[in-house]
């Protein structure tokens, strides 16, 4: 039986990952901000087959709560097989350009808070000498673009952090996975018109679960984003500056 911690468990993608583990009768420890929604999800996952579902409230930007949250989760579950960090917010870029407090808040939600959580969790995992840490970052962290570079900066920071963490924890048999989704049809992107590049959260969840079980270190989700991002990263600056992305 697997033991799973999910942070930001009310996220559409995280919810779908949780369903996949619930069917396999896992023990789930769900941490999220919206507690009524968390209760609804708990009921749902129990019916789907989860062996146990624990919940705990959390605001990403209350950094001083992170250590206790992580310790409680590890203590309750004993061994942790998967820790998934999924919370995030898509900022209003224009607002971040004029309001530095807003920019900092977004950097905290999408970047600093994740690093804070991982710092506590990494120590625990290192002691366990087994397990997986998966974090949902974004293709937006690959190259700064005018439409969302504050978000991109935060996600990119986490990706770089994960590269180092993966190297460190490989010595103790812990698998670190950075998931970089492209466009996913979730409440975060409700306002966008959806085209052929969009994936459903169910699909993304299947990919995430498969990569965890295979100990893969491939980030782009779905995989075709590897091609798109390779092109975007290598477009020369003088052309890049002329496009609206």
């Amino acid at each position, binding site marked *: 039986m697997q033991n799973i911690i999910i942070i930001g468990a009310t996220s559409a993608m995280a919810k779908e990952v949780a369903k996949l583990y619930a069917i396999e009768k896992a023990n789930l420890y769900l941490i999220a901000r919206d507690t*009524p*929604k968390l209760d*609804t999800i708990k009921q*749902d996952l129990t*019916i*789907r087959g989860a062996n146990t579902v624990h919940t705990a409230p959390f605001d990403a930007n209350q950094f001083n709560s992170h250590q206790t949250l992580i310790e409680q989760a590890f203590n309750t579950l004993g061994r942790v097989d998967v820790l998934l960090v999924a919370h995030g917010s898509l900022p209003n870029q224009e607002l971040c350009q004029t309001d530095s407090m807003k920019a900092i808040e977004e950097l905290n939600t999408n970047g600093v808070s994740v690093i804070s959580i991982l710092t506590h969790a990494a120590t625990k995992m290192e002691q366990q000498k087994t397990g997986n840490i998966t974090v949902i970052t974004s293709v937006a962290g690959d190259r700064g673009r005018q439409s969302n570079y504050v978000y991109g900066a935060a996600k990119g920071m986490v990706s770089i952090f994960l590269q180092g963490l993966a190297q460190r924890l490989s010595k103790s048999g812990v698998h670190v996975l950075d998931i970089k989704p492209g466009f996913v049809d979730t*409440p975060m992107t409700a*306002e966008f*018109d959806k085209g052929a590049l969009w994936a459903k959260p169910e699909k993304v969840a299947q990919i995430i679960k498969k990569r965890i079980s295979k100990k893969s270190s491939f980030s782009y989700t779905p995989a075709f984003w590897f091609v798109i991002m390779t092109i975007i990263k290598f477009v020369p600056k003088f052309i890049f500056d002329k496009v609206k992305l």
Partner: protein
Amino acid sequence: MKKITSWGKYPLIDANVNAPSTSKSLMNKKQTGIARGLGRSYGDSALSENIIISEEMNHFISFDDETGLLSCEAGVSLDNILTSFVPKGWFLSVTPGTKFVTVGGAIASDVHGKNHHVEGSFSDHVTSLTLIVNDQELKCSRDENPDLFHATCGGMGLTGIITEATFKLKPITSAYINQKVVKAKNLETALELFEQYKDVTYSVAWIDCLSTGDNLGRSLLMLGEHADKGELTTHKDGLLNMPCDMPSFLLNKYTIQAFNSAYYNKQLKAEVNNTIHYDPFFYPLDGINNWNRMYGGNGFTQYQFVIPKKAGKEGLTEILKAIAESKQGSFLSVLKVFGEGNKNNLSFPMEGYTLALDFKLNDKLFALLDRLDIIVRKYEGRLYLSKDVRMSEEMFKAGYPQWEEFQTLRKEYGADELYHSLQSKRIGL
């Protein structure tokens, strides 16, 4: 504003879309517009300038494994119910021909399946539902707010937003179906076969609408019962995808005739018996994602009518002749015998014969459908709202005599001011 359309891809409109994340989050918030599930209705029933999508309200609430009673939010899809409950030995009491519909949509259209003649329609297995009307949250069942219950089941979202429902699943011991396929050389034989096999749980006929003369109405009758042997395995994801709209000239009277002929002649024996998984038996088209793109970019519609049993062979013959003469072939035509209808104000099924025909949209089509309307009216039949995109107010009111009762109730709850679709405006609700 977002571009949005339903299964027939016509019309395509701009709408404000709101997707509440749980049923609880709708409480005490007045909504206006129309509720929408997975948009598998063909026409404009789920289209309005404001749309409340239930997709995120997709949580199970409780399940009683003694009785099979499941409570869930209205945005849960039948697909999801199957993947979660088939392995535990439970199946849907009633299912339409696609599993990609929501519980809310199945109740609002009071959908029917291949077992209507013995097990009724979807809402006949619903024990209660939660409805948001105006700023109230009301529990409705056959005992509590019964008038609202019977208006909401089959009510096409026009009484408010269904947020939760409780309904019965049926026990199964295998995910497989024992199937029998019988050839019928014409309509008369097909109707006789339906009568002969009336006790079989599932029955439907695929009918070739382009054959004429002695062959008019030649069909393949498909019958099925849940098998008792076989594993409780669920379906897999659709494997094929129709990646873009097919050029619409590829579907014409010649290709359709060839397809229909090939389909009928594919089976050489008069009768074939086999065991197949529930997925190809109930959902033959779900294997191809977005198969609606086959009809090209202009979109398509389905004309589904029911005529009372007494109109029988005569009525069906008249309609089949009109279609065959028009040469506006239908790719997929399905004939089924309905059992008795229920007490809901606007539910489609009534005891009789129902025929569903797909048509590619073009300039000549609506004139043909108007001609068919006249025949359906003559035999006191009606059209299925969930497939419709063009019926007139007159046609609707003639077919659904309980519309007045329905409208009075809507007024009583203030629902007429708040909930409407492009369809409801067209048909005078």
